């Protein structure tokens, strides 16, 4: 615990540096162009120095990924791209980040949004490694890009265009391959959790329903089936984190609750008032989602507590 406190203090001391490296609005070549909607109505919190104990925001003014890129380029942690051997047609290109620790670590699989394996997802993986987890972010679109490529080549909108081709069976197969890779890592402790966002939030919950040996799942605003029978085989405890203004997803929370109770499985849903879909990425929020930053702060703490508790 002393170490953790020290890290927190260091991080706080570093905060002004982060603030200085953020893009200055006056230099922004995008001035006058399409800006994230927060630009008009940014709550004061959006202007505060970045909190290094939260994942980076993916809705920075100007270049939306400016904060993400700064984190990735300055991360002291070891990261690498690996091709994970697959039972499917192509290897699964994955981004792996290792924590700086001397003992064995739990592995957390980070599941991308509908936009593919983006810099923001890599930023979240780096943040989890900062908290002591080995983070693996697989590209579920491996092989679906032009000439056998994946998310990077498809781009965010292109990834959204093809992601519907990935079936539930594909998702589970890919995750089983990644999990096998995680269990074989010499520095891993044998416990595997999963956290996913949007499309990946639905995928994380799906994997909890399909893989009884999974240790923990965190679903950020992931869609859920309405049929209680779909939850029957769930063993892993699932933490659900939802924006209050995201009725598309939230409409099925009660069905999921009923299904999980029937399965005698743990499900802990939290709905954050005033937050929209995708709040952990769009932390600055907008007029329809003013609560994104507050939701981010609360949800991330719950996430770390959940993963630590169940992957010890």
């Amino acid at each position, binding site marked *: 615990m002393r170490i953790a406190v020290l890290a927190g203090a260091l991080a706080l001391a570093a905060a002004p540096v982060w603030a200085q490296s953020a893009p200055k609005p006056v230099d922004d*070549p*995008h*001035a*006058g*162009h*399409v*800006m*994230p*909607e*927060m630009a*008009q109505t940014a709550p004061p919190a959006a202007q505060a120095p970045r909190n290094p104990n939260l994942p980076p925001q993916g*809705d920075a003014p100007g270049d*939306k990924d400016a904060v993400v890129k700064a984190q990735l380029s300055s991360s002291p942690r070891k990261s690498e791209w690996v091709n994970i051997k697959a039972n499917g047609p192509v290897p699964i290109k994955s981004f792996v980040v290792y924590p700086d620790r001397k003992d064995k670590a739990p592995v957390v699989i980070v599941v991308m949004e*509908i936009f593919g394996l983006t810099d923001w997802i890599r930023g979240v993986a780096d943040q989890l490694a900062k908290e002591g987890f080995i983070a693996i972010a697989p590209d579920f679109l491996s092989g679906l890009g032009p000439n056998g490529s994946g998310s990077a080549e498809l781009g*965010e*909108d292109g990834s*959204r*265009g093809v*992601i*519907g081709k990935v079936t539930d069976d594909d998702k589970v197969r890919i995750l089983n391959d990644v999990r096998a890779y995680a269990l074989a890592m010499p520095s891993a402790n044998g416990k595997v959790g999963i956290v996913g966002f*949007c499309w990946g939030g639905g995928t994380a919950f799906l994997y909890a329903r399909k893989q009884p040996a999974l240790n923990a799942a965190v679903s950020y605003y992931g869609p859920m089936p*309405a049929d209680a029978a779909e939850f029957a085989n769930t063993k892993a405890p699932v933490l659900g984190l939802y*924006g*209050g*203004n*995201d*009725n*598309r997803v*939230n*409409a*099925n929370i009660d069905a999921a609750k009923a299904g999980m109770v029937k399965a005698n499985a743990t499900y802990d849903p939290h709905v954050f008032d005033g937050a*929209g*879909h*995708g709040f952990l990425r*769009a932390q600055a*929020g*907008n007029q*329809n*989602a003013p609560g994104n930053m507050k939701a981010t702060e609360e949800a991330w703490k719950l996430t770390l507590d959940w993963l630590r508790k169940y992957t010890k």
Partner: protein
Amino acid sequence: MRALTFAAALGLVATPVLAQSPAADPHAGHDMSHMQQPAPAARPDNPAIPPDNAASMDRLKASPRHGEWVDIKMPSGPALRSFVTYPERKDKAPVVLIIHDIGGMGDWARAVADSLAKEGFIGIVPDMLSGKGPNGGGTEELGQGVGQAIRTLTPDDVNARLNAAMAYGRSLPAASGRTAVIGFCWGGSGSFAYAVAQPELSAAVVYYGTPPTKTVDGKQAVDTDALAKIKAPIVGFYGGNDARVTSTVEPTVAEMKTLGKTYEPHVMEGAGHGFLKGQSGSEANAQAAADAWPLTIAFLKQHTK
């Protein structure tokens, strides 16, 4: 109208200033393709209304809202490839079907759906050419063949596709059950025709599209029998400089009045055909877009409550 004229004059005066000082142009390094035509000063993107065509992809990328592609099943034939956008709200939302223009499914129509989601609607844009392209594809696979293919769609085809999209929208747990339609150009005519075909529609918005017509004594005339079937209130937006379409407004007003139907046409002075997508085409187009969109939203909100 004096204000409109004044604004247009300012726009013309401002053009040479911008042209002479490219260094000060805040748009430097961005997509300028829409500015290469001799147009008045480009306005900065106005996030309160749908984007100019050239800004569509930037707008989609900057959107905080959830948008996804779905393949909507139809009773027969191919799946309807559709882009669906969701509002950030906690309660159930009305659905707006968006009918693209004669160019087929595109980023601009998707950005319109996103603009509607920003205002609290679930937006559904079906690719009306789904299954008409090579290998069962749609607009994207047709490429240059879109213009040919879109002519092969009969009014019944279009209505059947819209019915499938409407049924999908109603099935969403987050949907309130109210459905409206909005269409542009070719899709504007489709929107008017759908109001004729679908009695359960709550509202129809027609952007520079024609009403249903029939041939009388060798001349095109408004189809009164078709209009008589309309249940939904209709609002229309037309370019003042688009006589091909706008000349239909007056006879439509007369017929709809006789039939006791709600029809609110707005003719935007000085604007051309397609002014919402072509906001950068002229100052009048930009003004028309800025004026028409709030009226569109107010109309949709009023009738889908």
